[in-house]
């Protein structure tokens, strides 16, 4: 583990903790002042959190720790989006951002403790490695991969997953409106005790078109696997790979 990095992170965290107290005080006493600087402060804060995440990729962290900090990364992206919208919308929404900002302070502290904790040697490959294994480094849409998936990636399953990614990439290149893709390990503990590597594809389509695309992609995946003719890969595709679609749903009363 890189001690220098952790010491640096500690120093930054300590400084930020002091600033947090000041900001919290300002929020109570001078909200109109704080409101004006909230956006800038959060930009600083998110920059700091990103730095921590980036540093942690080089640290020897265990499986659970990695899962946790990628969840934090997701929360961070969400907050960044909110910051962008808040700046051009209602002024009072800044208070919501400030609230998120302060709770993120606690989140960073938890995270800092995690990467400073004991290593149990149950480390998993960094997200970049898993993404590359799955062919996602070439995918032209945003994605989120839970690194737990590496535990199911034996050779046939990886090859089956690559077929899915290849078909998906091709469809995206041909205009399929995919907003983002999540990849995770689905484990059922009490209903059969099985595991699947699940791709959840979020599309900007209505349910009818989404189901048509879903069926069509499943057909193409199966056909591609059959053409390759490797039985163990075909079996893995059936047994261990989930391809799910999510689409736009209009609420109804």
């Amino acid at each position, binding site marked *: 583990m890189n001690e220098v990095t952790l010491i640096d992170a500690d120093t930054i965290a300590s400084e930020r903790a002091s600033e947090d107290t000041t900001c919290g005080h300002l929020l109570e006493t001078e909200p109109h002042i704080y409101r004006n600087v909230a956006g800038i402060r959060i930009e600083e804060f998110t920059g700091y959190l990103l730095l921590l995440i980036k540093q942690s990729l080089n640290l020897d962290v265990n499986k659970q720790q990695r899962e946790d900090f990628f969840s934090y990364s997701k929360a961070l992206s969400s907050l960044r989006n909110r910051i962008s919208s808040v700046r051009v919308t209602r002024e009072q929404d800044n208070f919501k951002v400030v609230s998120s900002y302060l709770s993120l302070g606690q989140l960073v502290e938890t995270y800092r403790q995690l990467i400073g904790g004991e290593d149990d040697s149950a480390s998993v490959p960094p997200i970049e490695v898993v993404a590359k294994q799955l062919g996602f480094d070439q995918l032209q849409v945003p994605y989120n991969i839970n690194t737990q998936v590496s535990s199911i990636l034996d050779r046939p399953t990886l090859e089956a997953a690559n077929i899915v990614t290849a078909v998906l990439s091709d469809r995206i290149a041909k205009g399929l409106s995919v907003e983002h893709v999540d990849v995770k390990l689905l484990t059922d503990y009490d209903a059969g005790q099985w595991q699947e590597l699940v791709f959840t594809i979020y599309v900007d389509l209505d349910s009818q078109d989404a189901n048509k695309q*879903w069926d069509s992609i*499943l057909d193409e995946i199966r056909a591609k696997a059959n053409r390759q003719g490797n039985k163990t890969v075909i079996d893995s595709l059936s047994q261990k790979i989930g391809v799910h679609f999510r689409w736009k749903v209009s609420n109804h009363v």
Partner: protein
Amino acid sequence: MFNPDAFIDVSRSFSVSGRNEAEYRTATGRALYGVYLIAREELEARGVKVKVSDPTRRGEEHGKVRAAFKQGKFRHDKVSQRFSALYNLRYKSDYDLDATVTQQDVLHALNYVQYIQDAFAKTLFKNPPSA
């Protein structure tokens, strides 16, 4: 004998806007269990041994039902993937307290269920089981 369709009816009744999250979580689980039980009974009636007599191993029936749509006479990739998606939603609804389960999730679950039921009626279980 209880009709599992009633579980799906419960799910539909909870799928409207304005319900609370506990109801949406319940609706997702009932949607899965409704269609799972229908599948289990239909498969068993057609000679696929999916039922387990030992009550302590009842969970294995889920795996057997899923396996029946992954390979063999009743293999159906599209149905299998809708089941997978339902289990995914069910897991989120029953176990993941950090997640937020919404009406959107229930509506997706019911769409998956409808697809499976249509496939049952039109192809997989179109013909009645032979006596």
